[in-house]
């Protein structure tokens, strides 16, 4: 048998399976075992293993000084059991045995007690009344016991079992103590026991204890107000800005909830301190069990047609955040990022509600706008009916005498005609009408003209700037509300899309239900208007005011332009500035397309209206040329004494002057230029026609030149459209054709060939046509034509 001890593996095997005490004896069995089989190296390895099993760290560098001085080891005997693991965290091969012996001396007696089920006065005397350190000692025993887990497994397991029994008894007594202290509201003390519990890794027990003590507010006990109670009525019935009585919700829900949470935050801090995170879990439970159900109740039970939800959800959401997150106390248990974490919970749990709002709101918004615009439309229409009645009455009062002479029965039936048939009037030709008119028809006409004149004056009311402004403001606020959700990163994309959708609704509603009907009405009124009808009224009628159709229409253009600008500003400040839209990235985005097409719609209406307006203006000018320009203006019977513009020219220029600058300040320069150039060009054509309509003598030529100078002055110094001025320079030169004496007929012929004289504006044929309007044409014709044709084109002298 003795030879067995010579076998190294056997000796090692035995040594590895012996408990500490037996191993020490076994190593002493003989010299060979002590010096060879269990040499210092092997011995030290065995101690090292035990320490490693206890979780201590081995320092490898052999040259480095051992972490514990010899003196330190000797003094270790005095080291308190509580401090041991803190003091000896490291070892190396040379001091492993010494360090293990320190732990052994301290813990082996306790282990022995456990093995013997000897629990009385189990803890060292100084810790008899110190459950916190007792908990630590229990923890240390378990750690120490691990050093035996390999070599003496049965003993190890027995110790574990008994330790568990002891710990259970210990925990129960701690829970008991905690209960007593919590019930007597000695929360500090309860917190002390909670710390012990957590030290024992009894987190589940700890949280369960807390949860069993907390009662969430009872939703069923909240007396939810009715919808009408909740809405503030005293602010007037502004459908754009309904207001909630927040004090009701505050006192019923938000303040009690906030106080409840703050109360618990303090309690959790007292009980758990920062030992174990509980507060976030608690708040999550609160959101799930209380808040979500409260909000649900709010929006389902008292809300009618989702009104509260669609009008107030963002405010309510941010009220929740404000009261139940921002106003929460700091929490030691929650750590420095407590509020951020709480906010995240709200965002996560309320996200479905937010998404629901984002889905429903744009359509609701669109419907709302639709209603508002329609309401305005109806107002205008009823005003118009009202006004028409007034016009009818005032005309009847003014002409009562006339009406009495008429057949009275007839009058009554015709009364209805007043309101229904004014289109007929305009189909009658100007000349025939005056003769046909009996008094009744005159009245009819007067009524209808008054009507149109009044309606023209109302054109600018067809688009309501105040209404548009209100709607823009409303939209801005709503987008702002939605934009506040941007802080929730997961929603950014959806929010951008929804804001874009709202903007598109704004443009669509504005264009379909406001701009379009307004411009269409205005344009139809413009085209019905005939200035000459006003002049044919003979009876006793006060025409409401001098109607200048373009004046009225340009006011509409002005308003339209303001709205376009409002949209641009809105687009820039709300969509671009808030990065709801990236101009560079999203240039194909349908929002931009939508905005462009809106602008195009307005531009088209403006162009159509202006075109009609210019037509009307030209009609008036032609009317003046036909009625005020007299035959002897340019072909006087007696020599002209006083050379000055004709009455006709003065009136025509006044008309031009009154209309050419109406757009200034109302729209962009491009439109103004087009408008003014169109007027200039069309007026030029009318002047040409007017010259050709008249006979001009050399005496009358000065007067005509005077008129042409007068037109030129207006074009060159007032209208200032560069490409129009040359037309009137050419006209000035045409005027000279009539000044030339009949004796100089040959030179007249040469001038006709000199196209350069007329800036290339008029062809030779046209100049020839002009010359034919000379009153002495028949006398000079031969000479002129001789120059023109007799010499041939090549012979014409270009001077």
């Amino acid at each position, binding site marked *: 048998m003795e030879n067995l001890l010579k076998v190294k593996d056997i000796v090692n095997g035995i040594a590895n399976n012996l408990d500490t005490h037996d191993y020490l004896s076994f190593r002493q069995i003989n010299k060979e075992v002590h010096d060879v089989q269990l040499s210092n190296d092997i011995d030290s390895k065995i101690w090292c293993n035990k320490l490693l099993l206890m979780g201590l760290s081995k320092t490898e560098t052999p040259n480095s000084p051992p972490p514990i001085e010899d003196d330190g080891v000797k003094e270790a005997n005095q080291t308190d059991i509580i401090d041991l693991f803190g003091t000896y965290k490291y070892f190396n091969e040379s001091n492993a045995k010494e360090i293990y012996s320190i732990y052994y001396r301290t813990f082996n007696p306790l282990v022995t007690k456990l093995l013997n089920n000897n629990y009385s006065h189990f803890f060292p005397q100084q810790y008899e009344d110190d459950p916190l350190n007792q908990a630590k000692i229990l923890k240390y025993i378990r750690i120490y016991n691990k050093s035996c887990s390999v070599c003496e497994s049965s003993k190890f397991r027995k110790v574990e079992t008994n330790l568990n029994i002891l710990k259970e008894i210990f925990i129960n007594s701690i829970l008991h103590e905690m209960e007593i202290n919590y019930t007597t509201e000695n929360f500090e003390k309860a917190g002390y026991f909670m710390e012990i519990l957590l030290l024992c890794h009894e987190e589940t027990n700890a949280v369960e204890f807390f949860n069993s003590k907390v009662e969430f507010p009872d939703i069923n006990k909240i007396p939810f107000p009715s919808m009408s109670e909740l809405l503030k009525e005293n602010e007037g019935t502004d459908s754009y800005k309904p207001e909630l009585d927040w004090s009701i919700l505050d006192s019923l829900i938000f303040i009690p909830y906030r106080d409840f949470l703050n109360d618990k935050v303090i309690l959790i801090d007292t009980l758990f301190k920062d030992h174990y995170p509980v507060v976030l879990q608690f708040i999550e439970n609160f959101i799930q069990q209380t808040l979500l159900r409260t909000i649900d109740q709010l929006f389902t039970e008292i809300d009618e047609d989702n009104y509260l939800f669609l009008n107030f959800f963002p405010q309510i959401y941010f009220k929740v955040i404000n009261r139940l997150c921002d106003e929460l106390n700091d929490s030691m248990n929650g750590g420095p990022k407590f509020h951020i974490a709480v906010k995240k919970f709200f965002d996560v749990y309320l996200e479905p509600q937010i998404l629901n709002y984002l889905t429903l709101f744009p359509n609701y918004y669109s419907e709302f706008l639709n209603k508002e615009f329609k309401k305005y439309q109806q107002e205008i229409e009823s005003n118009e009916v009202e006004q028409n009645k007034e016009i009818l009455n005032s005309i009847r009062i003014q002409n009562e005498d006339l009406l009495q002479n008429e057949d009275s029965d007839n009058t009554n039936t015709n009364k209805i005609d007043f309101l229904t048939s004014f289109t007929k009037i305009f189909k009658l030709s100007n000349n025939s009408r005056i003769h046909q008119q009996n008094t009744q028809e005159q009245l009819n006409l007067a009524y209808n003209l008054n009507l149109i004149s009044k309606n023209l004056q109302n054109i600018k009311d067809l688009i309501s700037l105040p209404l548009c402004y209100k709607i823009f403001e409303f939209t801005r606020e709503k987008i702002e509300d939605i934009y506040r959700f941007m802080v929730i990163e997961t929603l950014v994309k959806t929010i951008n899309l929804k804001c874009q959708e709202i903007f598109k609704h704004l443009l669509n509603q504005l264009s379909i239900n406001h701009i379009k009907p307004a411009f269409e009405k205005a344009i139809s009124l413009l085209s019905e208007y005939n200035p000459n009808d006003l002049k044919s009224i003979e009876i006793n009628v006060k025409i409401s005011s001098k109607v200048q159709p373009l004046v009225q229409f340009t006011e509409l253009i002005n308003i339209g332009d303001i709205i376009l600008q409002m949209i641009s500003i809105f687009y820039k400040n709300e969509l671009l500035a808030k990065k709801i839209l990236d101009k560079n990235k999203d240039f194909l985005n349908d929002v931009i397309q939508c905005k462009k097409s809106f602008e195009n719609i307005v531009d088209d209406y403006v162009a159509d209206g202006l075109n009609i307006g210019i037509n009307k203006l030209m009609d008036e000018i032609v009317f003046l040329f036909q009625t005020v320009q007299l035959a002897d203006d340019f072909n006087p019977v007696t020599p002209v004494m006083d*050379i000055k513009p004709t009455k006709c020219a003065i009136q025509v220029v006044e008309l031009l002057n009154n209309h050419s600058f109406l757009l200034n300040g109302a729209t962009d320069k491009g439109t103004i230029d087009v408008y003014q150039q169109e007027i200039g060009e069309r007026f030029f054509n009318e002047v040409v026609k007017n010259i050709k309509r008249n006979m001009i003598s050399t005496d009358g030529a000065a007067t005509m030149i005077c008129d042409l100078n007068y037109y030129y002055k207006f074009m060159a110094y007032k209208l200032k459209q560069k490409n129009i001025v040359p037309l009137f320079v050419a006209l000035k030169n045409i005027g000279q054709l009539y000044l030339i004496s009949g004796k100089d007929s040959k030179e007249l012929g040469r001038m006709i060939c000199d196209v350069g004289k007329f800036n290339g504006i008029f062809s030779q044929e046209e100049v020839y046509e002009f010359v034919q309007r000379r009153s002495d044409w028949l006398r000079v014709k031969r000479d002129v034509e001789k120059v023109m044709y007799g010499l041939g084109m090549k012979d014409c002298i270009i001077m």
Partner: protein
Amino acid sequence: MNNEDYGYDYDYLFKIVLIGDSGVGKSNLLSRFTTNEFNIESKSTIGVEFATRTIEVEGKKIKAQIWDTAGQERYRAITSAYYRGAVGALIVYDISKSSTYENCNHWLTELKENADDNVAVGLIGNKSDLAHLRAVPTDEAKNFALENQLLFTETSALNSENVDQAFRELITAIYQMVSKHQVDLGDSNTSGATAPKGPTISLTPAPNENKKSSSNNCC
């Protein structure tokens, strides 16, 4: 006999032409005289412009109908039309630009060729405010005027200097000639001898004047 009876607010109407090179300031002289305005950025005249002003000479209201010409008209037929019926003319040059003065001879010749023999003519050296740039000595122009029996004034349309005076002198000269002429006319008529030479119609007496003279004749 009252002028208003006939709807005229003047006793005589004189046609006066403004001639001279382009850019010498004819249009501004005219606007200074008729409306007391000066336009520093005025564009060059195209064709012909008209302006009138009525002044009183020896108790008579005289309406001056002034034709402001472009100064670069190429067609003789047109210039001839300008001069037709003119009883007075102002030939304008720029004292700071000798070429415009040198051309006065040409303008005088053209005037003589086209206008009535009795036309009263004034020579105007305009832009006298540009004294530091003077290129035409006053004496030289004065002598030229003397030789050709022209009135002479240096003016500044810019600061109004002598503008009124220049026009007044011309109008007065025309008036004196007309009233003398009318006496001649009256004499010749009573004698029933030679008809007056030259286009007297261009002297355009107002209708009341005609009437006056005819009534004189009768009684």
